[in-house]
Structure formats: structure tokens, C-alpha cells
């Protein structure tokens, strides 16, 4: 579903060249749930942006759902759902319900399919109480649930999440994690998420990829990840070892 082959992205900053991502190769199959870890500035968001076609890779190739994202961006948009934890993709001054209606038009979702989908998402994400509230008045947890619904209304094959639990309280986090597990299990949606919250990883991800300095530093199951450190280490200790170890 997602294929990167020696993909790289560099930026020119004041005459020097910064390689945000270099020589990155990995494959994610349909139905997988993958956690994408890395310290700040490691290249996680750059990778995500290449997957959605926002950034054009400067080397190598990227394919998502069989398409080259940067060349077929608007076609791919119908098959991929994207959530940025740091900013909303909803219309700030409109009620949530109106944002959804606009998305229905933008993605040309059939009216009946939309109604069924919205019903389902309203139920599982518990949106009913604030569907008519303007987005700017929602709490962060409510807004994130709204953003998740918005990213899934068009029933995408792939869901890409950039720090979806950032800033949320424990209850909101738990409800979002439950929801993501359900989407992955029931719909077979491929999920790739970046996070700094290791609870997300423990709870959600069967497979973990770790990127550092723009290169893939680890790729394996959660158990494999835990096996890289002495026994009885907590996941925090394991990841700290990898972040600091691979940084040297």
C-alpha cells in the first residue's frame, strides 16, 4: 500500500543542503498498523508530507496506493486520509456538520454513503453533542475527533496520522486509540502514525519503524523493538537507547 524506494528529500538552507530524509526504503502492506517513531527533526513529518504529495521527493521514488503522490496528488487524495495533530483541516468558523458537508462535495461522496458513514462515525467518535458547534469553539479532544471523522468520511484505504494524540488528556487519548484500532480491524484500513507518546505505540502498533537523521534506524515488531535492550527495560528506556545510540 505504501512503498518507498531510496526516497530522499533535501532542503537548501542558506547555501548548505539539509537532508531531511535520505535513502529511505520501506514497504507497508494493506491492513498494517505501523508506528513511525523518531526524535524531533528526524524526518517524520517530511516523510508524511511526501506520502500525501505535499512535498516532492528530491531523490528515489514514493508510491501510495499505486500512485506517485506528488504527481497524482488530487487523485490520491480520494484514497488517503490525513490528520495533522498540530493543526486542523476543518473550517474554523463553520459548525462541524457544515465542514463535513463541504467535504462530501469536495470528495464527491454519494449522499447515501455519506449519511451512513457520518452516522457510523458520529456513533463511534461520539460527535453527536457538538456537530452543530463551530470548530473554533471545540475543545482539543473534540476537535481531534472531528478531524478524524473528516479524514475518514471518504472511506480511504490509507490513514496517515501525524501526532494525533498530541496534547490530549488520558480519556481523549484512550477513545482515539480505541477508535483507530477499530478502523484498522473492521475496515482493514492501513494506518501509519507518528507519535511521541509511547503509549500509542504499545497500545496500537504491531510494527514499529524508527527514523533518525533521515535514515531508517529500526524496522520490526514491537517485540523486536523491546529485544534491542536488556530485559525488563521499559519502552521509554528502549526508545531512549535507540534515539541516543543511533544519534552518535
Amino acid at each position, binding site marked *: 500500500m505504501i512503498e518507498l524506494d531510496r526516497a530522499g528529500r533535501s*532542503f537548501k538552507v542558506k547555501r548548505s543542503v539539509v537532508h531531511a530524509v535520505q535513502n529511505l526504503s520501506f514497504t507497508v502492506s494493506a491492513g498494517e498498523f505501523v508506528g513511525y517513531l523518531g526524535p*524531533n*527533526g528526524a524526518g517524520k*513529518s*517530511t516523510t508524511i*508530507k511526501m506520502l*500525501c*504529495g*505535499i*512535498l*516532492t521527493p528530491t531523490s528515489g521514488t514514493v508510491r501510495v496506493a499505486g500512485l506517485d503522490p*506528488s504527481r497524482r*496528488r*488530487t*487523485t490520491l*487524495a*480520494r484514497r*488517503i486520509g*490525513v490528520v*495533522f495533530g*498540530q*493543526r*486542523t*483541516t476543518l*473550517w*474554523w*468558523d*463553520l459548525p462541524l456538520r*457544515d465542514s463535513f458537508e*463541504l467535504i462530501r*462535495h*469536495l*470528495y*464527491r461522496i454519494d449522499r447515501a454513503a455519506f449519511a451512513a458513514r457520518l452516522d457510523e462515525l458520529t456513533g463511534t467518535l461520539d460527535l453527536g453533542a457538538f456537530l452543530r458547534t*463551530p470548530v473554533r469553539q471545540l475543545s482539543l479532544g473534540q476537535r481531534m475527533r472531528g478531524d478524524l471523522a473528516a479524514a475518514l468520511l471518504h472511506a480511504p484505504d490509507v490513514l496517515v496520522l*501525524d*501526532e494525533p494524540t498530541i496534547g490530549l488528556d488520558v480519556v481523549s487519548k484512550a477513545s482515539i486509540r480505541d477508535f483507530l484500532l477499530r478502523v484498522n480491524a473492521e475496515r482493514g484500513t492501513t494506518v501509519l502514525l507518528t507519535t511521541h507518546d509511547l503509549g500509542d505505540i504499545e497500545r496500537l502498533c504491531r510494527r514499529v519503524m524508527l527514523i533518525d537523521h533521515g535514515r531508517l534506524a529500526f524496522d520490526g515488531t514491537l517485540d523486536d523493538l523491546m529485544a534491542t535492550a536488556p530485559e525488563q527495560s521499559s519502552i521509554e528506556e528502549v526508545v531512549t537507547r535507540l534515539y541516543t545510540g543511533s544519534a552518535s
Partner: protein
Amino acid sequence: MARTYFLLLWTWTRAAAAYPVSFAMMTVLGFAIAAIDVAVILIIFANTTTLAGFSREEVLFLYGAANLAFTICDTFVSNLDRVSTHIKAGTLDTFLIRPVGAWIQLAADRFMATRIGRILQAGLVLGYAVSALGIGWERAWMIPVMVLTGIVIFASLWTIAGALQFLLTDAPEVVNTLTYGGSQLTQYPFSVYTRDLVKGVTYVLPLAFVNWQPGLYVLDRADPFGTPGFMRFLGPAAALVLALSAALVWRQGLRHYRSTGS
């Protein structure tokens, strides 16, 4: 495409109506500012009878035609020049994940229905000038052609201005010289400018085809700079060339987009 665009316009209008006081003030201010331009022209003619060989009604005609095209673009596509703001705020990414072209979404972004008053004002000035000059149909047919040409030229300039901001994120105002500067320039007959400037805005940046060249035909005047008669009809071709270049520049700009951190 058009359906999506108008849907977005409607959405932004409703969003703007969420702040009713601001909505009302923008409407009043829009009218007031538009009236100042006309006042300036009337003041000039209170002191003289001709401006670089053109009568008051002729100048109002040239101003009205250019301003009609300009205000239509200012209302419907001018938010293309907010590219750098969106890049800095990181909100451009949210346009790029939608299955609709970024150009359409940006053009419709923060559409303000309150600007429509200025289009009406420009239309009224043009209508007054045409009737006062008694222009017959044998020449008046050029007027809709020149307004359309002007719309394409200004929309292309806005597109180029937006595309340049992908490169010049730190200096968004520089590109305003293309759009707002272009509009200021076309408010007066080109005969008030120097020959070199007029050459530049004829052959390099085709602003002369917004109102000057076709306007000379409508007014049945010879060009004081002596360009041949066929130039009066080149507007649509010049607009087409500019539009194609603008499309190319936009595509390149979008591909060079660097995005922001996190």
C-alpha cells in the same frame, strides 16, 4: 471545478457572517475606498479640461474598464497572494490533502462578499462614461472583450504573484507591485507615462491590453505612441500567452513548495 469554487465561496461567506460587525464595516469601507479613486479623477478635471489629450469622460471610461476587470479579480481570486501567509502558518498543507486543485481552494479562500460593492462601483463608472461618450455598437462590442481580457490578465498576474511567494516567502509584499501596482497604472491613459514605461507594460507585462490598446479602438483614437492599428485587437492573444505562462509558473511554484516543520 466551477461548482466546487462556488461552493467554497458560499462556505466562506457563511463563515464571514459569523462576525457580523466586521462584515458590515468591510462593506462600508469597501465603498468608501472605491469612491476615493473616482474623486481623484474628478478633482483633476476640476482644474483642467484634458489629461494628456483625453477628456474627463474618456479617462473615466479607461478607469472604469480597467477597474471593472481588476475588482472582479480582486474579489474572486486575490487571495492567491496569501500563499506566503499560508506557508508560514502551515495551513497550505491542509489545502494540499484535498482532491481539489490548490489554485481553486486558494482563490476562494477567505472570499469576502463585501467586495462585490466595488465591482458595482466600477461598473457604474464604466456605464456612465459609455453613455456620456455616446459610443455606438460598431465600436462598443470591444468593451466586453476588453473587460474579459483584463480579467484574464489580472487573474494571471495574481497567479504569478502567488506562485512567486513559494520562492519569496519572506517578502510577500514585493509581488503586490504586479497586481495592485498594475491596477494603479491602468487607471490613467498611458499617454501620461514615459515611452519606455509604456513599452515595458505593452511587450513585457501586457498591462496595455487591459484598457489602453482596446480602449483606443473604442474611443476611435490614434495611439499617441504610434503603435500600428492591429495592436488594438491583440488583447485576447496577449492574455492567453500570459495565462499559459502563469499556469506554468504556478505548477513550478507548487512543486518547489518546501512546507514547514512538524
